[in-house]
């Protein structure tokens, strides 16, 4: 599903150059649930941004679903993002003057789907994350966990190949975190490929594979025994 080879990325700030990714090789198969771990500054968010086509690598190759992703113009990038990827952010990034339902329907709008179909589909995904009753509420009327679940519904709405989650539980308390992770695990169980950046040990163990990043290099890549969030919450 995802295949990257010898990925390099540097940031230039004035005369200083910061080499963030120093040759990453890594591949993800369909249906995997991968945690990308690392302390801050290890390059994990940069990696996710490149995977999400929000940023471009300086060197190396990136294949997504067999397609080479390189030198995309904005239009093509937008199309790929819409078709292949769903984003989940730490700070939810919902549009705050739109209702939960409209937020979920947004990616479908950019796919050119008619309004009634859009609303129907969006409602389906809101039901899936258990927020059907909150469809007409604005984001600031929802709790953090609810907001993140709306964001997850939005990421799912365009039926992407891969879900990219950047610290999905970073702004949530433990109980809510586990609820959100349980939802993500359920989505993975249905066969969706998920990449999840985190720096929390317990969250990473809820994935099936943990990739450890340090100073721009992968220092460890191993399969782990998945801890089900539901059970973790009961402990």
């Amino acid at each position, binding site marked *: 599903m995802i295949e990257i080879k010898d990925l390099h990325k540097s940031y230039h700030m004035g005369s200083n150059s910061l080499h963030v990714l120093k040759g990453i090789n890594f591949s993800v198969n369909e249906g995997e649930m991968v945690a990308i771990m690392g302390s801050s500054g290890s390059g994990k968010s940069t990696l996710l*941004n490149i995977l*999400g086509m*929000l*940023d471009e690598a300086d060197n190396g190759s990136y294949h997504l679903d067999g397609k080479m992703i390189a030198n995309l113009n*904005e*239009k093509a990038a*937008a*199309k790929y*993002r*819409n*078709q292949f990827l769903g*984003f989940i*952010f*730490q*700070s939810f*990034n*919902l*549009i705050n*003057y*739109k209702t939960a339902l409209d937020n979920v329907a*947004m*990616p479908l*709008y*950019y*796919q050119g789907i008619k*309004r009634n179909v859009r609303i129907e589909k969006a409602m389906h995904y809101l039901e899936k994350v258990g927020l059907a009753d909150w469809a007409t509420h604005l984001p600031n009327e929802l709790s953090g966990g609810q907001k993140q679940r709306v964001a997850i519904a*939005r990421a799912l709405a*365009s039926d992407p190949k891969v879900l990219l989650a950047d610290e999905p539980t970073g702004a949530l308390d433990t109980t809510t975190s586990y609820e959100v992770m349980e939802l993500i695990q359920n989505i993975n169980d249905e066969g969706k490929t998920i990449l999840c950046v985190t720096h929390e040990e317990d969250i990473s163990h809820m994935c099936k594979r943990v990739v450890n990043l340090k100073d721009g290099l992968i220092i460890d890549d191993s399969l782990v025994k998945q801890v089900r969030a539901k059970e973790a919450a009961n402990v």
Partner: protein
Amino acid sequence: MFSLERWQEIFETMSKNWLRTLLTMISVFFGIFILVILLGFSSGIKNGVRNEFEQDATNRISIWTGVTTKEFKGLNPGRRIQLRNSDFEEINTKYDDDLEYRTGLYSIWGGTVTYKKESGNYRIEGANADQQFIENESMVLGRFINNSDLQTSVKVAVIGNQIKKDLFKDENPIGKSIEVFGINFLVVGVYTDPGGTREETRIFIPITTAQKVFNAGDKLRSLAYTIKMSDNFDEAVALSASLSEQFESDIKNKYSIAPDDRSAVRVNDTLEEAKKIYGLIDTISLVFWIIGLFTIIAGIVGVSNIMLIVVKERTKEIGIRKAIGALPSSIIGMILQEAIFITALAGFIGLFAGVFLLDAVGPMIENDFIKNPQVDFKTAMLAVGLLIFAGALAGFIPARRAANIKPIEALRDE
């Protein structure tokens, strides 16, 4: 551009941010409103002045004489210069090719005119048949003075519409007899004048009759001509000016008047005046246009400014939209369409408010120089075109900026 979805998006963002939208609209509203009012008044001034000129033919030249103020060729100042029939004939013959209508005039400023029990004080003018066209009169009833009246010096009179109203009320005055200074005149016609009631309180009688009745012999008070108009306005003005000069110098030569004596002979060249005033009006409307345009530019800059703030404020939102698959073109379209819509909507409201105000207040304005201020359809359409263009212009830079927003930077958590 015309997709329903896009409009829903725009209405939604506008209503969610109504204060910002309102403030933007106010600046555009006033821009167009002021432009419309200014243009209305410039057309009002044009109408007013044109109306002043329409009282008489615009290509008219009038000649009066007065008292000399300078000694010349041994003659003392203080001589009264008197025009006579012979002066009129001389000019007629000499400049026959260039003249259209011509008349000598002998008028009494105020004379009591009586019909049955009604009476009033009116100006009485002895004139030729041509006077009808020189004074720009059109007949309501009957006829004007004709050549046979002039040859036979009959006592007939043509009265203004206002006099008819004063003396005859609803009665038909044609064929009735009125008394002027105790002498009976037969009313043969009623005229109306574009200059309004003031110009309709005159009675015209044949010049030959006037000279007899008022014991004037062959004396004339003034001469009036219109020149033959050529299609080219500037040529006509030049001809009018040169004729005026020649009339003046001819009379001055004949009566031995100092060339620089301004009060002995006065020649009024209406066309020259008209040209000056029309030029002035054109300048005024140009200035009004410029002021109006600058006001609109201020409005546009306002919209552009606010749209820039909007883009800045919505950076994160635009980043989110791009992250979930919005094309740059759809972002540009969104901002541009919103800018055009806001300008156009506010502009139309301003346009209608301006037109409405002019319509409501315009007719109430009682001023000789401003009449019927209004904006014609063409100008209004021009303003509308200007608005759409302005909206696009106002939205363009902010839209470009929005399209260039990188989602990764917009979404960076601060």
